[in-house]
């Protein structure tokens, strides 16, 4: 045990001896968190709209005013003929065009139905989809107001079914509350896996790993001693990220903090195990970096449900995602943060994460033993 202590000490001295590395390990998470906290919003605001108003009546101006007043839209220009919208959409000066046909006001005044055309730039399909939804809702609301004006008050009872939407877990629909817990998971992966794999390969490149191999340290002692400092760094980052997320960004933390820390430790087992595994299959730091970036980091970012919902993926890929530890940890984090549930709900994910961590650690240790013989 004392020997492990020495090794941990040696690693920590090395890590803190490189002030740039140490700074990055502390600064990087903070910076990334702030970036994501502010950037990660899929709400669409201020969509630039060009209006082709061929009618120029009171009614058409009223509709345009509705768009201008909505926080979702911004009027980028008003033109008279529909041909001119081409210029706006093609150059990206507007995302959406509202065309009001001539005679719009008169038709409505006569109480006849009227069609409005909304043209949207589909090159950013996600935003367009949301923006089209806003536009349809806005016009529907306006049309309903017009209809209400036509019926004299108290004339006939208005029937119909009104939908009442109740949103659980994230009532303000803040993308941030969903993304920031995910950032914690991603940061731990990025920092601990890379640092540990490159750290070990570096010693291999410099030849100092050989020296450690001939010391009376046992295999597991070497592994534990090498990995513990990185685990410590990971836990420091957890504290930093949690503090910022909860106190700066007001992300609700409804579940148990103790459980959160415990499961972070379980998760660290798999990220560090992965780092060790990568180090056993790479002979240069560049290889280690590419292997982690291409084969572990990128798939995990894209396929874990961090940004893109797993439920939208093809079934085949959905099965594949069960192999990704980040997937389980994301569910755990988001459930603890937003739903406030405990192990009684999260036990399957916890179990999967534990098995994954132990598995990859064992594999990595087995591989590194073989190499040294």
């Amino acid at each position, binding site marked *: 045990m004392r020997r492990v202590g020495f090794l941990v000490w040696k690693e920590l001295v090395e890590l803190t001896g490189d002030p740039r590395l140490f700074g990055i390990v502390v600064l990087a998470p903070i910076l990334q968190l702030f970036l994501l906290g502010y950037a990660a919003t899929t709400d669409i605001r*201020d969509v630039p709209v060009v209006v082709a108003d061929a009618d120029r009546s009171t009614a058409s101006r009223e509709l345009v005013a509705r768009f201008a007043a909505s926080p979702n839209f911004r009027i980028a220009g008003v033109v008279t003929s529909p041909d001119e919208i081409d210029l706006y959409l093609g150059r990206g000066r507007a995302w959406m065009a509202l065309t009001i046909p001539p005679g719009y006001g008169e038709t409505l005044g006569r109480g006849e139905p009227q069609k409005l055309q*909304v043209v949207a730039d589909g090159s950013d399909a996600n935003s367009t989809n949301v923006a089209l939804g806003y536009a349809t809702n806005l016009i529907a609301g306006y049309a309903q107001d017009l209809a209400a004006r036509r019926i004299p008050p108290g004339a006939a009872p208005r029937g119909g079914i009104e939908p009442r939407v109740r949103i659980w877990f994230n009532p303000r629909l803040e993308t941030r509350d*969903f993304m920031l817990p995910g950032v914690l998971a991603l940061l731990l992966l990025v920092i601990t896996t*890379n640092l540990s794999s490159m750290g070990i390969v570096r010693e291999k490149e410099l030849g100092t790993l050989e020296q450690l191999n001939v010391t009376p340290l046992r295999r597991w002692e070497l592994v534990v001693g090498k990995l513990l400092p990185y685990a410590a760094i990971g836990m420091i980052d957890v504290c930093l990220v949690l503090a910022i997320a909860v106190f700066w960004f007001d992300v609700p933390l409804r579940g148990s903090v103790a459980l959160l820390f415990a499961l972070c430790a379980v998760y660290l087992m798999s990220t560090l195990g992965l780092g060790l595994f990568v180090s056993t299959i790479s002979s240069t730091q560049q290889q280690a*970096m590419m292997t982690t970036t291409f084969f572990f980091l990128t798939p995990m970012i894209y396929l874990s449900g961090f940004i893109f919902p797993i*439920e939208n993926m093809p079934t085949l890929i959905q099965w594949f995602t069960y192999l990704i530890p980040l997937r389980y940890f994301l569910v755990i984090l988001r459930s603890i943060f937003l739903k406030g549930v405990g192990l009684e709900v999260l036990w399957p994910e916890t179990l999967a994460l534990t098995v994954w961590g132990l598995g990859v650690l064992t594999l990595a240790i087995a591989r590194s033993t073989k190499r040294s013989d």
Partner: protein
Amino acid sequence: MRKMLAVARKEFRQIARDTRTLMILLFVPASFLLLYGYALNFDIRHVHLAVEDRDHSAESRSLISAFVNSGYFDLVATVGAGGAPPARTTVIDRLLSDAPTTIGLMDRNDVRVVLVIPPGLGRAVQTSRPTSVQVLLNGDNANTATTVMGYALTIVRSESARYLPAAAVPLISVEPRVWYNPELRSTLFLVPGLIAYIAMITAVVSTALSVVREKERGTMEQVRMAPLGAASFVVGKTIPYFLVSLASALVIIAAAMTLFGMPMRGSWALLFVALSLFLVGALGLGLLISSVADTQQVAFQMALLVSFLPTLMLSGFIFPISSMPRFLQVVTYAVPARYFLIALRGVVLKGAGLEAFGIELIALAVFAVVVLVLASARLCRQWV
């Protein structure tokens, strides 16, 4: 010039010798595009729905089948068929007869939406009295939730319109039309983003370690001794990686067109110019990182911080720039992927020309020159 070529030749040999790295650089990007282009989309279908029908009338059944037949919802559970009275009656779940089951379904992510139909809906509708249904929605993923809410509202409203008196039916209807991507396939907007992201990481990964590695191994001393200027060293280092990453980017673009039906509506020459400028900028950024960092570990962390994450988060690839806070929008002007994406989407999807993204091309060129000059300047200082 000759010296520069000598550096390029040496670097080429080094790349060619490390077959694994070369293979990764050339082919992994294309297979990435395949995997992610296939896997990722924002098109939300098959939302898991639970229904609590406490009315059991023709109208309530018609509403439920409107949800199921819309193609967006899959009915996976029915809750409390007139069972025990609410265990925990609050304002929120006043309508629920079986709150624990519903909460359990939502907690375990078994369903995303619960539709609660109150008793007496059918009667109310027939007698033209206003009534309401409750839609409980799991809001954890705000993006998905917004879309799902839109689906649910539309379905309930159109169902409701059937029971309204003719005079109350709104007159204006909307006819949405989408240009450039009429089916709103999210693949068509994700693929250009993926191309930018993959090209960026390939380029940065290949150069970020190149100078630090020589520093760590001590071969930098030898380079420094050689009669060679910092600028020709930097350019010489860039050329081979430029060719490799250009090859890999072209493979990706070809794959995007053949496999994902990405159209090509504009000019190939412009696409080539935009791509080259972007790649040179990315490679220069990698070299700059490499000249600043002392160890490869630091170089890698910096690469993540200044290139991968901004390309993913701040380029407009996933999150719309116009929705970001003002100061962050200013930051995005320093992200080359921002300009590249505008140019790429412009050329490929809109068939636009220089008049639409000339400024973006200039910005890309400026970025490339600035990072290359900075990298040379840094190396110059270390030289002496």
